[in-house]
């Protein structure tokens, strides 16, 4: 039987491999990766419900614990709420790297589909960025819903003083997320005890980057480490844009530094991912779970 005689199933799209470097092809791959991930996500309503319930609960667990340190009568000021909310936002955004992008490769590996994923005639980066886009979308929905919930419970608005700078800093942060996410996605092909490592990285991020409190509070020797982490600058800029806190560096210099670091992170991330993938193919460790 000749291959050409096999009729295409109804509804199946014709796959063309021409124009492999075109923008439309990249967009097609990106869309496919995004839709695939979205479908997988909504296939398990318990996970969606879990995200919707658990995410705001993290905020409502820690917020009162912090508010009891604030001066009496000012415990629930808009400034304090916004500060706590921002910390919460930074934590949610960063978790995309570890449990969104990084975990996705590990999940494919455990399910035994990573080889198919890597054999597909598509760009690796687009596939992983598709995953990122789905997580970014669902995180955005959860954050929006949580913001409404906080405003309803506390009766206070979330302060955002400079929206353009905030959005620009958020974009830089997300570039950093993609860069580090790619690195972690690659590492999952090598490291099997992923959960323990991701938890430790998560705590390191929270303590050292000023996600939940400014790095001025971090003891001095560790503060130097903080200043070497790109996320420290993304976070600092976002907090500055939202509630007008002082920046670590002069504002213009900090914006330039953050831009440079965001680009470097994407480059380093994609280079590392490609390199680890190549090594995994040679060692045959792609499928090892």
């Amino acid at each position: 039987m000749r291959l050409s005689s096999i009729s295409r199933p109804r509804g199946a799209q014709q796959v063309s491999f021409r124009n492999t470097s075109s923008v439309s092809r990249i967009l097609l791959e990106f869309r496919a990766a995004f839709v695939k991930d979205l479908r997988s996500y909504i296939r398990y309503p318990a996970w969606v419900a879990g995200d919707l319930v658990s995410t705001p609960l993290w905020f409502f667990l820690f917020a009162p614990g912090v508010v009891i340190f604030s001066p009496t009568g000012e415990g629930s000021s808009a400034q304090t709420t916004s500060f706590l909310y921002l910390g919460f936002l930074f934590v949610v955004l960063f978790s995309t790297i570890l449990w969104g992008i990084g975990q996705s490769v590990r999940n494919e590996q455990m399910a035994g589909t990573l080889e198919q994923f890597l054999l597909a005639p598509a760009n690796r980066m687009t596939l992983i960025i598709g995953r990122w886009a789905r997580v970014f979308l669902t995180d955005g929905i959860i954050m929006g819903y949580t913001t409404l919930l906080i405003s309803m419970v506390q009766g206070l608005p979330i302060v955002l003083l400079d929206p353009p700078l905030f959005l620009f800093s958020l974009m830089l942060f997300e570039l950093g997320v993609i860069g580090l996410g790619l690195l972690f996605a690659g590492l999952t092909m090598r490291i099997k005890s992923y959960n323990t490592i991701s938890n430790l990285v998560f705590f390191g991020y929270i303590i050292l980057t000023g996600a939940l409190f400014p790095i001025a509070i971090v003891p001095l020797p560790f503060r130097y480490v903080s200043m070497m982490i790109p996320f420290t600058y993304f976070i600092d800029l976002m907090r500055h844009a939202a509630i007008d806190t002082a920046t670590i560096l002069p504002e213009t210099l900090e914006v330039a530094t953050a831009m440079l670091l965001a680009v470097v992170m994407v480059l380093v991330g994609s280079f590392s991912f490609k390199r680890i993938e190549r090594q995994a193919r040679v060692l045959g460790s792609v499928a090892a779970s």
Partner: protein
Amino acid sequence: MQRTTTGVKATAAVLTAIFWKGLKYYLRYPGSFLLVIVTPFLFALLVLGMGQFVGSEDAASNFALRTGTTNILVYEILGSAVWMISWVVVEDLGVALRDEQMKGTLEQNFMAPVNRITLLVGLSLTCIVIISTVFFAVVGATVALIMPMELVRLMEAFLMLLIGLIPLLGIGFLLAGFVVRFKEPYIITQMVSLLFATLTGTYYPVTILPVWVQFFSYMLPQTYVIDGMRQIVLANRTLVELYGSIIALIVLSFVFPTLGYAAFKHFETKGSATGEFSKY
């Protein structure tokens, strides 16, 4: 000769077997256990760091005004430790049966000539050992470092925890049934653990919560355990003086295990009829 499966000796043998099996899982993954020990410290330090920033130089006095103590770290660590202990119980008991279900060994467990109560108690024994280790590694180490003179009070605090453990294990049984029925163990245990932490005053006194929320707080054993341990370690109160909390815990010790076992039996009966046990 067929061995007897009833009597004290046989029950003890079964309990020992389940206990060792549970302990072996922990010993096999030391990294995960280390995380259980480290996490209470990390969360407590996070709250402390954020609080210091929000309250600046008056942070400690503002905290003392609302909690009645200036010993912030011990206050936070006690809450953090009980939260982590509660998470361990909820996850270990809630996920244990689901794990067996996923591996396809739940039917063998249920077909073994072993009483269900013995099975659940066996799972609880491992929990008690793990919890005791967490308590002494987290609370013991903190008290020894920060207020060594109060080390003698540690046993009373531990006793308070053990009393509170009975209703907590009952909650674990309740969840075990739910998890076998609804699958998705980690989502259920995470949601429940976070809800418990928020309601039971892990990092703050429950009195700052709205009154209608406090109603739910006082239905949970962890609320009495956290408050009782703080009173014992930080305010030099004795267990006798905390009789109100002890009575509440004793009442809950009847309510939750009874409810938990009833729910577990209900799901088991239903699962036997529908063939639910072999479903992933």
